[in-house]
């Protein structure tokens, strides 16, 4: 399982099995935040960052849990450790780099409890990736998330000018747009082979 190439892992996470459009992870910010392209890009940056942190955390926790032979504690320790690490990083960031914090900080608490983060941790464990593969996988997932978010935001900016029937306003039309985007992303399948 560990002989899958890094490029294939990256393409797979970013495009073919896009976290938002194929796994439906992180849908809440996808529909909530993605109404302005600029916000979407910043949010995407924050997600990439948290995903990297979470991926490294999850990799280490999993090693420890295998070592002490307690796989049943995986879920509970993943969520607790990831949440507290992100909090810690947030505090450090605020002290060291207020600029970055202002750009990304407001999103961090929102992202921690996002299912995309825990999903990433669980998927990389299921796939049995090694350390460098985990990092690439997290990067790919983050980039894919950002792409989906920005695309959606772009469509929604235009959508505001369109006449949408009363019934479909809000979530329903966003879902249809997402469905069409997801169909478009199906075209990427086969790239990683």
């Amino acid at each position: 399982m560990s002989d899958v190439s890094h490029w294939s892992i990256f393409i797979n996470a970013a495009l073919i099995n896009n976290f938002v459009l194929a796994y439906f992870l992180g849908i809440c910010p996808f529909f909530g935040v993605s109404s302005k392209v600029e916000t979407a890009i910043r949010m995407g940056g924050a997600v990439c960052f948290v995903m990297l942190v979470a991926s490294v955390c999850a990799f280490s926790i999993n090693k420890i849990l295998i070592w002490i032979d307690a796989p049943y504690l995986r879920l509970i320790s993943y969520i607790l450790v990831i949440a507290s690490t992100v909090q810690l990083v947030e505090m450090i960031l605020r002290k060291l780099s207020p600029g970055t914090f202002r750009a990304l900080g407001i999103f961090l608490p929102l992202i921690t409890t996002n299912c995309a983060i825990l999903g990433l941790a669980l998927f990389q464990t299921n796939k049995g990736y090694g350390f460098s593969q985990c990092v690439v996988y997290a990067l790919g997932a983050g980039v894919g998330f950002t792409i989906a978010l920005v695309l959606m935001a772009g469509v929604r900016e235009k959508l505001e000018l369109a006449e949408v029937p009363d019934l479909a306003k809000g979530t329903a039309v966003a879902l249809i747009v997402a469905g069409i985007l997801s169909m478009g992303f199906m075209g990427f399948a086969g790239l990683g082979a």
Partner: protein
Amino acid sequence: MSTPTTHTDEFIKGLWRDNPVFIQVLGMCPALAVSNTAMNALTMGLATSFVLLMSGLSVSALARFIPREARIVCYICIIASFVTTVDYAIMAISLELHKSLGAFISLIVVNCLILGRSEAFASKNSMGRAAADALGMGVGFTAALLSIGMVREILGAGTLFNVELFPEGYQTWTVMVLPSGGFFAMAVWLLVVNAIKQRQETAARLKEEAS
């Protein structure tokens, strides 16, 4: 809400008025991801309902001991334990089912519906009412998942709970069992729910004007 509502009211509201998926649009991740067949949808719905009920009961019972500052950590701990329980239970019942749901069982932990109900309802209501609320929300969630799952399975595979529905030669809408089908099925259900709600509101307004 000033008059004390009965347990039945708490139960009923989750079914339609505050339906978690169609009205509050919470917990969409599992609603879309594992609703490609009716069986998966039903299992996911039941698993989520169980976690909702158990964590609702525990949070309600322990509310007095949990300081406000530490409540989220405690809730997540409780929820994660019950999710692990469900995970192992499903593995013990059927490995096949567990494989088709994959990591999405574990992802119940981050379903905003559960943390939301624990925080907003169970922590400040008695165990009985928390249970009624959780059951209502659970049944509403399961029903919503099942309705999406049924549409997707019937159109996408021509079956329902693995029973063939159509004569040979039925051209399946493969797109419905693919991810994009999830978005479409959910969108169509939202349209239906919106239409019904709009009609009810108009009827209520007309009645008010008449009286």
